[in-house]
């Protein structure tokens, strides 16, 4: 099949979004379903159908969402209403919008936990400590499922 000439192709925009909490492992389909649910409930089927949102990349704590040019503001607003991927609480923070994925890849700064993960006890619960740059500390409750994370700083841990 002969490809469509460039001038007749749909113009696209790509939105780079950071996935919170840090270190969360999510699959592309899970992110896509959450984005579609958020956008559809906010703007309706007709608007979302025309915007054609799709998740084209999801790795390293970032997701790239594709949409039609001119609808990027609406889709970015819809991304702000994403509150969970499946059963896990999460958030998407829009970082940048661009016309190419290549430009967005330059904006990706991988967020890796610092060495020195340990344990902490808050109240009667034991937590695994993950340290991140800028003195951020994520505490994940030890257990099999329904672990409640806590988001602290180094100073908060020292006080306890």
């Amino acid at each position, binding site marked *: 099949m002969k490809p469509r000439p460039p001038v007749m192709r749909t113009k696209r925009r790509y939105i780079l979004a950071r996935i*919170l*909490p840090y270190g969360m492992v999510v699959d592309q389909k899970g992110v896509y379903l959450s984005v579609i649910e958020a956008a559809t*409930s*906010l703007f309706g089927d007709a608007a979302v159908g025309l915007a054609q949102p799709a998740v084209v990349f999801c790795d390293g704590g970032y997701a790239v969402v594709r949409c039609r040019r001119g609808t990027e*503001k609406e889709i*970015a*607003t819809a991304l*702000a*209403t994403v*509150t969970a991927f499946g059963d896990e*609480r*999460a*958030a998407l*923070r*829009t970082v940048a919008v661009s016309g190419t994925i290549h430009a967005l890849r330059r904006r990706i700064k991988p967020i890796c936990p610092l060495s020195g993960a340990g344990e902490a006890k808050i109240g009667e619960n034991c937590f695994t400590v993950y340290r991140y740059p*800028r*003195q*951020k*500390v994520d505490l994940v409750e030890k257990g099999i499922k329904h672990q*409640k*994370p*806590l*988001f*602290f*700083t180094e*100073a*908060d841990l020292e*006080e306890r």
Partner: protein
Amino acid sequence: MKITDASVRPYPAGDSSLARMAAEAAELGFDSIVAIGEGALPGRGPAVLRGAVIGAASHKEVIRQVREPAVRRADVVFVNAGDISFNRAVVSVKEVQVLRNIHTTRKNAFDHVAARSAAERGVAVDISMVPLIQYRGTKRQRALQRYEDILLLHRRYGFPLTISSGACSILEQRSVREIRGLCALFGMTGAEVSEALASVGRLIEPEQPVRVVG
């Protein structure tokens, strides 16, 4: 002009410490936050103001609660909105600065009379992002209708608005740009959002006539 998130609820009410929420707020473009509830104030990062929420059923109870030491220590005093007579009465209480949870009230609970009183006394109405972010379906539609009505009254009478994330977690905090997008859903312009985000500063330090000293 200080961009302020008008209410966050840190640990133990939520799952994020006040210092962490303050750090996240700074990254999201805020100069200050209003923290509701107890919590040690962080030494650095954006300014953290103390907020107190009064949840009362009657006007008399509000007057009694504003005299409590915890409320008197607060920088910003919020009152949960109620029915029409409660809201009309509470906006005339001197110590009350912000009327919140307006999206939970009935359609005409905040009417033109309350709006005029609020404008005269400089009492703000809080627009919470919680229903726009967390709710779905008819609940969110109702909140959007209420906010549009509040915006209409704000444009007519000129009472201040504040915008709050109402976040209990860093996962619920949103950036200034995202708040602009969410407020555009009910017709708020960028300039109005900027003014609303800066209005907490004006509430705690109201403009007064120049006083000649000495």
